[in-house]
């Protein structure tokens, strides 16, 4: 029982990271109808920027964090300008191929610049964690969960209670109508990419002390986050969060009770099971194609 609680805590912690990246997926998907396959690389790049500044250059942790987020905002903007925007009027296949190209480009550029050795990034806190009854609460996992709750709350407030948030919603629902009533659609899409890159970056920085900082972490996280969006129902914000948490828990229990080397495979099995038996996900609705 103690072990179960402990695994549940760890699973929710890691699942919160998937949820953050999945949120980035969903926001870009709703704004552009395209899945950004480079979403995971945002996490990887942010983690590497942290390593460069906080570890290699010895800057303070908070300052490195700000630099890293600045870098992610810039990357999000460049990504939109270089990859999505020129192809916005083409069908979805060229666009997703381009985002896959961007993902390969980002991962391997970092590899070429930094080399293949996985790096270690310290956690934010000096205290490793606290013992609460039978469960040991790792401080980094606590931080991940707390930040995720704050970000989700912020996002809810932002989209539901600010004018800018409503403009973003309008853009994602009907671009043509939004532009007709004077919403600058291109700027809204730009903002979506920047915000998604920030979300991915925060997720990467948060998870870096738990995992190693490696070139592969982007692809791994993206795969899990995508599975999370399918479990939750594609394009559904609440679904992405619950899907992410569920996947983190499933994976942690799978690694503990079934097999460690195949830990990354459970996401795939869950993904395929959902695709076959419930492709609309837990909360999604099937939308019929119109003639």
């Amino acid at each position, binding site marked *: 029982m103690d072990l179960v609680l402990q695994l549940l805590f760890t699973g929710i912690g890691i699942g919160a990271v998937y949820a953050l990246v999945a949120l980035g997926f969903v926001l870009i998907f709703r704004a552009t109808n395209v899945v950004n396959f480079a979403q995971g690389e945002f996490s990887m790049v942010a983690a590497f920027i942290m390593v460069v500044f906080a570890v290699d250059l010895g800057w303070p942790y908070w300052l490195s964090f700000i630099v890293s987020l600045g870098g992610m905002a810039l990357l999000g903007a460049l990504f939109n300008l270089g990859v999505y925007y020129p192809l916005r009027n083409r069908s979805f296949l*060229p666009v*997703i191929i381009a985002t896959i190209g961007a993902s390969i480009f980002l991962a391997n550029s970092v*590899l070429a610049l930094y080399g293949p050795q996985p790096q270690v990034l310290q956690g934010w806190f000096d205290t490793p964690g606290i013992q609460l009854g039978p469960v040991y609460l790792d401080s980094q996992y606590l931080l991940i969960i707390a930040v995720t709750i704050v970000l989700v709350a912020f996002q809810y407030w932002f989209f539901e209670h600010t004018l800018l948030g409503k403009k973003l919603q309008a853009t994602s629902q009907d671009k043509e109508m939004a532009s007709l009533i004077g919403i600058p659609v291109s700027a809204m899409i730009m903002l979506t990419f920047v915000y998604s890159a920030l979300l991915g970056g925060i997720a990467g920085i948060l998870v870096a002390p738990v995992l190693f900082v490696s070139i592969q972490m982007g*692809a791994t996280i993206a795969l899990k986050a995508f599975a999370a969006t399918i479990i939750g129902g594609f394009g559904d914000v609440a679904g992405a969060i619950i899907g992410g948490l569920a996947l983190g828990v499933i994976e942690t229990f799978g690694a503990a009770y079934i097999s460690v080397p*195949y830990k990354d495979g459970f996401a795939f099995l869950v993904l*395929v099971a959902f695709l076959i038996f419930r492709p609309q996900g837990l909360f999604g609705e099937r939308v019929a194609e119109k003639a």
Partner: protein
Amino acid sequence: MSVAAEAAKPAPARRFPGPLAGALAYMAAAALAMLAAVFLPFDDYILHILVETATYAIAVFGLTVVLGLCGQINLAQAAFFGLGAYAVGLGTADLHLSFWLALAGGAGIALVMGACLGMSTLRLGGHYLAMVTISFQQILTLVMINWIAVTHGPDGVGNIARPAWFSSGHGYLGLCIAALALVGYLVWRLPETKLGRSMRAVRDNELAASVSGIDVYRIKVAAFALCALLGGIGGGLFAGGFSYVSPDQFSFAESIVFLTMALLGGVASPIGALIGTALLIVLPETLRFLKSVPGLYLAIYGLAVILIIRFMPDGIWGFVQVYLRRFMKPAAFARSAPELVLVPAKLEAESALEVEGLSKHFGGLKAVDSVSFSVRRGSVHALIGPNGSGKTTTLNVLSGLYTPTAGKIALDGHDVTALPPHARTAVGLGRTFQNIRLFRSMSALDNVVIGAERPGHDLGRIHAALVDQARAALAFVGLEGRARDPITSFSYGHQRLIEIARALAGNPTLLLLDEPAAGLNSTEKVELRGLLKRIAGEGLTILIIDHDMALVSDVAEHITVLNFGRRIADGVAGEVLRNPDVIAAYLGAEPDVAHRA
């Protein structure tokens, strides 16, 4: 023998160069390449590069099929390549099977895996396929590394055998070139077969493909499985060529390399695939310094993918083809188009279409609410109603794009209520769309050929008969003279006529026309009216939906009127149009006021 028989037939030069001449030239070139492989004094290094190019190219042909022809993505081609390679490796080295058996086994495993993966995902959108194939790729790499008892783990498999007759480097290269030539020929000819045409139709417009009688899901699964099969064959030959394989040769990065090869050369043609493969194998060999920095050459590939997609979407071969086409205008048809014969289907039921209590609800909205009507054989029947009355929803339920909430649809006496769109087309339904849906990358003729070969319309599998039927249908709408022109060069009104010709070519029992006059100018509308009368004159049953009252009252004998999803009138055209309820629905007047006026 059959080749000789074909040649003896009086085959007029329909295409330049004729398919037979093309095939002969191809065979000669392939034979020359094989001779060169066996007899030219290549050293081991060159032999290795050539074997690598030939085996990779076979796998890239798979992407030509799935991505180029069918428009579906596969980011796990290296995994299928790896399945073939490991089958040959483990089969010959550990199990001591014959090379051929191991190769066939590997190809079979890749085929089955590809089919299963496709079946689980291809009903959904392309995003799912991209992610599922990436996942599959990752899983397979995990298995290759971790299932040490079987796969030898990261150490890889050595001592892979070659078949007895092809054990020398030159001999084996000859075998690979032969395989490349054979597979390349099949992929080259595929677009002109029924399967290949169906794939192109699915790529261009899934909805139009399904109402043309194509089982979209089955075609996608077939394309995906075929791609996996070619990956497996390529991988099996690759393993024999290098006698050692290890997991890192079949990683996700290699899948991206395969994708880049296909995109660079041009994804639409096996020639492009071969160009792309050769370039991306030879270039890194000559630019070895790129490989000295890990990640650098893959970073360049990633960037190349973005740039190719943006600036050269048809690849190198697509670029070259634009210039070649100027010199290779297709020859004119040797004989004129035959007369279109629309055979009114054999009498199986009194009415061509029988709709009973049909309902379609979207949540609380009753878009169509227990509507019944019947379309008499050989008549022109119109379904009219103001905007939002449920006309197009009715049509979509009739053609199977929506599942009805309740009710029954009988087409030519067959209950089709539960059938998917392509199966209804097989029973004899043809339709056009309000917003034209043609296969936009094809010629007018190819569009109409796809209509002609709908299931249930037997023309005896002879290509010439199909082309004749398609030309006849185009001639019927007056566009036969431009049969070979690409769709994009036709005006809006002509595109509508081509869509009608596509439906006519399948000789349907019932033709559904969804607002055919929408967007046409007044001259075109007059022409359309004439065309509809000629179609009706051939005895074909038509169900037409339109706003244009002049058109409807001119051509329709029988009218059903919908308003707010319910049938408000049904009967002979003249009477229905004088019905006060109908006038009220259209003009919004009080029934009695309308009556007095």
